[in-house]
């Protein structure tokens, strides 16, 4: 092993860097992938904060039956903005922010392939989000037809306000940003890998982001085109979705969900990657079934292009059995991933620091979301559950219990690498505990509400029966979650003030980002270790000892 140690410190070709600037203008004009990544992450967290407040307002309205805290129109804006922001401005962009920061480091590159394009997509994303929220300042308020904006409801003769137009423009800008950044990402990974970093040595997170980016190529153009069609319908006399002139509302369903279901996997595959990075580190073992995990990611991505009409089981105009079958099949590669993670922990040496706690939370919550997902793949179950709170519970278990918990795991895990300081463990545990309890209190009762006949997107409901009690429990849970998220903000501020420095590799981790300093220099690496497996930093550690 001594020979390998001698090979370490292979010099990397990097431009000699000018002194790093840290003023405001340098952040505004930066093309450094790490800074753009951090801008992406902080912006998406800001949108998460706003969208989270909206969800608290939603839960406050629903805490009691026949509530008049908000009226129906205000409530419709709340759930439209909440869904739009969480999906388009938080869960997916956070993943691209993380990939922006991490993936060039994980493959030993100095930057992304197209740094200026990278900056462009960030600014498109930021302003796209602001345009969506700008609707709230117009006379008729923000968009109020849900994040799915089904026509004819979203057509000009029903939704007359400017808010709906701003929604179309904003989501369009974000979709362009997402397409551009995924092109940049795939190019980077395909051509910028360091010597020795073969495709089968790429860390799983970066693999998952390749699969995610390919999904974006295929799905997001459909979204962009659909939004344009709706805009043409609204302002240029188009009739794409108007049955009176030969159009069809079902066309929207097809085009929108052709994007919309792959989008679900755009919002979860990156977080499968996060989990696949964290479990081995805190189990002190290599990831189990590396090849299987990569193949499963592509199987999920491929299958997810053929399941869109399971959102349309109750329309009565699609081939339900076909889409049921493909939807059920997705459970198989997802199960493979689950078993791989459990096998990685198996006979390991498991320590439960905050990133691992959130990862366990992800596994337990996502399991429930996955099981209800298999149930919803059955059309006769959809006949009751579709558009009900059962579906609301399901997708929150996937995106809230799944993606959100992985996001917190990622924040706690990579925070030291991004900012050079570690978040406080004690506060981190409280943050996890409150979020886990609060999350399940909020969303577990919603399964029952749905089966009992409570539709989603209602601004109030009648007294009597079990619904008021179930709703009250859910509202209390959402407030507990709010305290948990606030603790994270407190933690970030305290750790920034304390400035306790961390070394290059505080977790004894595996992939290349832990080789360089925390935070990394502008050019990323002074040197690289030899890359002989998917865990070069582990190999170097073994060689040294």
């Amino acid at each position, binding site marked *: 092993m001594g020979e390998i140690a001698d090979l370490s410190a292979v010099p990397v070709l990097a431009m000699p860097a000018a002194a790093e600037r840290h003023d405001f203008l340098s952040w505004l004009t930066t093309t450094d992938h790490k800074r753009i990544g951090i801008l992406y992450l902080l912006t998406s967290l800001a949108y998460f904060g706003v969208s989270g407040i909206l969800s608290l307002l939603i839960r406050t309205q629903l805490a009691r039956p*026949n*509530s*008049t805290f908000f009226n*129906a*129109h205000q409530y419709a804006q709340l759930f439209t903005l909440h869904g739009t922001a969480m999906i388009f401005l938080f869960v997916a962009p956070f993943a691209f922010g993380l990939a922006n920061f991490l993936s060039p480091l994980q493959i030993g590159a100095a930057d992304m392939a197209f740094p200026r394009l990278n900056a462009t997509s960030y600014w498109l994303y930021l302003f796209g989000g602001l345009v969506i929220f700008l609707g709230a300042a117009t006379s008729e308020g923000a968009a109020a*037809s849900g994040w799915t904006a089904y026509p*004819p*409801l979203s057509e000009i003769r*029903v939704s007359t306000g400017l808010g709906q137009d701003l929604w179309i423009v904003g989501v369009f800008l974000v979709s362009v940003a997402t397409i551009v950044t995924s092109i940049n990402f795939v190019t980077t990974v395909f051509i910028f890998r360091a010597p020795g970093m073969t495709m089968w040595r790429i860390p799983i997170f970066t693999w998952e982001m390749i699969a995610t980016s390919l999904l974006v190529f295929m799905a997001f153009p459909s979204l962009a085109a659909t939004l344009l069609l709706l805009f043409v319908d609204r302002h240029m006399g188009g009739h794409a979705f108007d*049955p009176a002139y030969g159009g069809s*509302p*079902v066309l929207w369903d097809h085009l929108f969900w052709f994007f919309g279901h792959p989008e679900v996997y755009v919002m979860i595959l990156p977080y499968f990657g996060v989990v696949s990075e964290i479990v081995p580190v805190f*189990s*002190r*073992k*290599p*990831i*189990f*079934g*590396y090849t299987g995990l990569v193949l499963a990611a592509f199987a999920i991505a491929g299958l997810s292009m053929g399941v869109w009409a399971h959102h349309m089981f*109750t*329309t*009565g*105009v699609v081939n*339900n*059995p076909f889409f*049921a079958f493909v939807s*059920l099949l997705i*459970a*198989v590669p997802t*199960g*493979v991933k689950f078993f*791989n993670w459990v*096998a990685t922990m198996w*006979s*390991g*040496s*498991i*320590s*439960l620091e905050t990133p691992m706690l959130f990862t*366990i939370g992800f596994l*337990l919550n996502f399991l429930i979301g996955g*099981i209800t997902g*298999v*149930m919803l793949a*059955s059309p006769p179950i959809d*006949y*009751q559950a*579709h*558009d*009900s709170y059962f579906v609301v519970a399901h997708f929150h278990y996937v995106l809230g219990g799944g993606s959100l918990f992985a996001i917190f795991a990622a924040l706690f895990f990579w925070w030291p690498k991004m900012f050079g300081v570690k978040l406080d463990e004690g506060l981190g545990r409280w943050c996890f505990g409150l979020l886990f309890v609060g999350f399940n209190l909020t969303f577990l009762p919603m399964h029952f509400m749905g089966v*009992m*006949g409570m*539709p989603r*997107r*209602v*601004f*109030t*409901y009648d007294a009597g*029966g079990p619904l008021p009690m179930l709703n009250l429990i859910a509202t209390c849970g959402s407030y507990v979650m709010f305290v948990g998220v606030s603790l994270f903000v407190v933690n970030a501020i305290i750790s920034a003030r304390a400035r306790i420095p961390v070394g290059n590799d505080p977790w004894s981790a595996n992939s290349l980002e832990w080789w360089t300093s925390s935070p990394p220099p502008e050019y990323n690496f002074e040197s690289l270790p030899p890359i002989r497996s998917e865990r070069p930093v582990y190999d170097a550690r073994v060689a040294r000892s």
Partner: protein
Amino acid sequence: MHGNTWPVVGTGQASVMASNWLLFLAVGACVGVIVVVLILFALVRWRRRPGDAEPPQFANNYQLEVAWTVIPLLIVGGLFVATYRAEARIDAVADQPAAIVAVNAYRWGWTFSYRGGPTVGGASNGPASLGVKQQMAELVLPLGETTRIELSSTDVVHGFWIPDFLFKRDAIPGQTTVFDVSPTKLGTFEGRCSSFCGLQHESMLFRVRVVTPSAFAAWEKSQT
């Protein structure tokens, strides 16, 4: 009126759906429990203790990996066959239904036109907070007989949902979709719009009254 609580499973189609629910729930619960037990067992059994040596660095077991691909494949294959059969029974449409009702949804009410019979309808009271006072539409169905519903909408997409029948279908403008309901329980059940359709979406309610065939005939006569 029965609603907003555990559903009563009030039609022949609903019984098929209820068994399908239970099957998926049972299989899902079994898989879920197994996985949770595995995770918790691993966490307890292999929790790191000070001075622990590095654990064994295995990373593959092809037999195991093939097994946990093939077994789930067989499970979802079985679930698909079951759900395919269930759906075929639920979606089947009788040649000679006892009654045919054209249901039309609009913002924010319902019209029920019985073929060769009356047309009834109305918008609902809605929650007290809205203060809208109109007559709620009532769909009358004969017990033990099959009624064919022809569903459409005049303005935006609505959803025709009777939670106690475990069934809903989207009402889409420009499109008519057809399904059967065969009530097996007498009573009055709540029906509602399931697809967000604007400001009074939550108050777009209707009433389903299941009566004996003779009472149904008498009701039809009284309305025309």
